[in-house]
């Protein structure tokens, strides 16, 4: 029972921070310009520093080998969820401009904006390395398959980027650079100067509040009134919030990942839709509103499913 209340408190906390973003939107203090600034600042500056701090403070040289195995199983579980999503999309006979969006929404979860604050609140700072491992595995897909899926649902001409372009896309993302920098420091056993760590700490302090304010603002932008269960959305929510953590749990069992790593992975697998999907849908001319509504509903939904999940895990 203690886990349940703890999780409810964590979720409530995140909800309050999201409410700040919603209120700022409602008051007109936050508009599209500020939203863009926050997302740029969080993704490119605050999160990379957060990755470095999280890795260097919570892992050592020896833990790294194990991380490889974990990454592999996380990738398999995400791939399975994507496959399941694709199967469901075919069965539901969704229109062209929705089905790729549907599969992407069902398949990958919001590991950073929601995942990092939520896991930190649930498990404490020690969980950050596992969040990073899951994040790395998940971005392998969001940068490749998810982009292709959304593109296929869109009206914009496709341009082939090729493997090199894909690798470049993945390895120039600042959060991934942050993870790589952190890993490098661990491999070489470098402890960065205290001044740097403190600076990085100040930067990472802004991640949770700003990321969640951003999510709250998105809910405001879509509008609470517009949230309704369009065709496919209930199925998407079931896959995203229930089946995805189940698949992850099964895989962890199979590979023998347990303890904190397992719990973090399962929670990460049960998180809302990736925030980029809405942006991508807009960019490629797929059904943007469908993506926005799905993403909002999954955000609101996870506030109910996460506490239940925590009880099962505890």
């Amino acid at each position: 029972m203690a886990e349940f209340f703890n999780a409810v408190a964590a979720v409530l906390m995140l909800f309050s921070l999201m409410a700040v973003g919603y209120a700022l939107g409602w008051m007109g203090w936050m508009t599209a310009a500020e939203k863009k600034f926050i997302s740029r600042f969080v993704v490119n500056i605050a999160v990379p520093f957060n990755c470095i701090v999280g890795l260097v403070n919570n892992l050592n040289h020896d833990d790294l080998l194990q991380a490889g195995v974990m990454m592999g199983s996380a990738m398999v579980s995400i791939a399975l969820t994507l496959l399941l999503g694709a199967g469901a999309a075919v069965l539901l006979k969704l229109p062209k401009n929705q089905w790729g969006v549907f599969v992407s929404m069902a398949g990958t979860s919001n590991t950073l904006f929601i995942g990092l604050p939520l896991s930190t609140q649930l498990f404490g700072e020690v969980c950050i390395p596992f969040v990073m491992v899951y994040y790395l595995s998940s971005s392998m897909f969001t940068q490749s398959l998810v982009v292709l899926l959304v593109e296929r649902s869109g009206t914009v001409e496709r341009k082939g980027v090729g493997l090199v372009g894909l690798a470049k896309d993945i390895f120039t993302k600042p959060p991934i650079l942050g993870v790589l920098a952190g890993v490098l420091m661990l491999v070489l056993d470098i402890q960065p100067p205290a001044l740097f760590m403190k600076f990085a700490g100040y930067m990472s302090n802004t991640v949770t509040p700003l990321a969640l304010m951003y999510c709250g603002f998105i809910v405001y932008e879509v509008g609470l009134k517009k949230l309704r269960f369009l065709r496919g959305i209930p199925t998407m929510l079931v896959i995203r919030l229930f089946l995805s953590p189940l698949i992850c749990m099964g895989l962890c069992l199979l590979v023998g990942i347990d303890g904190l790593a397992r719990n973090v992975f399962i929670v990460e697998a049960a998180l809302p839709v990736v925030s980029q999907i809405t942006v991508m849908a807009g960019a490629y001319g797929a059904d943007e509103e469908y993506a926005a509504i799905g993403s909002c509903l999954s955000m609101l939904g996870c506030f109910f499913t996460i506490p239940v999940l925590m009880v099962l895990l505890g």
Partner: protein
Amino acid sequence: MTVFINAVSAVFMLFMLMSVGYILGWMGWLTSTEKRFISRFVVNIAVPANCIVSLLNNLEWKDLTRSWIPLLAGTLSIGMTLVLSIAAAKALKLPKNQWGVFAAMAGVSNTIFIGLPVTIELFGQRGVPALMLYFLPSAFWTQTAAVMLVERSGSAVPQTPGIKGLARDLLTKPPVIGVMIGMGLLVLNWRPPELAMTFLSYISNTVTTLALIYCGFVVYEVGLKNLRLLRGIPAMLMIRLLISPVLCLGVCALFGVEGVERGVFIIIAALPVASQIPVMAGDFGADEEYAAIGACLSMLGCFITVPILMLLVG
């Protein structure tokens, strides 16, 4: 010597955070729109949250009963600095659109945007209650004397708000409300639930980072090339950065203010120009560029004077 090195590294840290704001401006990610958002968010949401958290975490009811002594000392030392500044403005025979700006710049210091980060970095959270006790008289003088001085230098027709309007202006400022709520909770001896405290800490953790990014952006906006020692600026810097803390030291000795409280008071008295003054100068039609240049130079100057002062205070 360790005190000095600590102070230098603390100041350097603040400088690094400011440079993030400068770089964001240079990259075009931060413009006047986002600047406005940051300042609104920090002043109206993050700082009040910080006031409540740090008062509740660092003070007890019995500490409040003797807080009228430091409050009085703060009021007196800022009052004296203002009188000295007005006299200096007269002696320098500054033009009409500059002299009030000069006196306001020399008289009151930046207690929030620079003061809060500096206090946290140099004294830790336990220094914050002392800062609050300085902030209250400083807000009082800024809303009264500083506003009137800048108004007199301006071309806009002065409107006298009267005592009622003045009290309303002062008591509806969110940071003042934050301090009042914090003190009210201390008097009632009631600590809000942990959930609320964690929520407030998340929000208040963004203060240092965002406030300094803001200050760095202000330097970028004015432009390093435009920074030059206009007439009166050297005298203003002298009063602001050196004479003001000496006056504060004297008043502290007179009133028997000691320890952390004295240290915080002296450092805060030595901080740069209050950030509202360039804004006010623009609003009232006084010499805005003069104010902006003075504010920037005092910001850069304090990075040199604060470590020296810490050596004397410590």
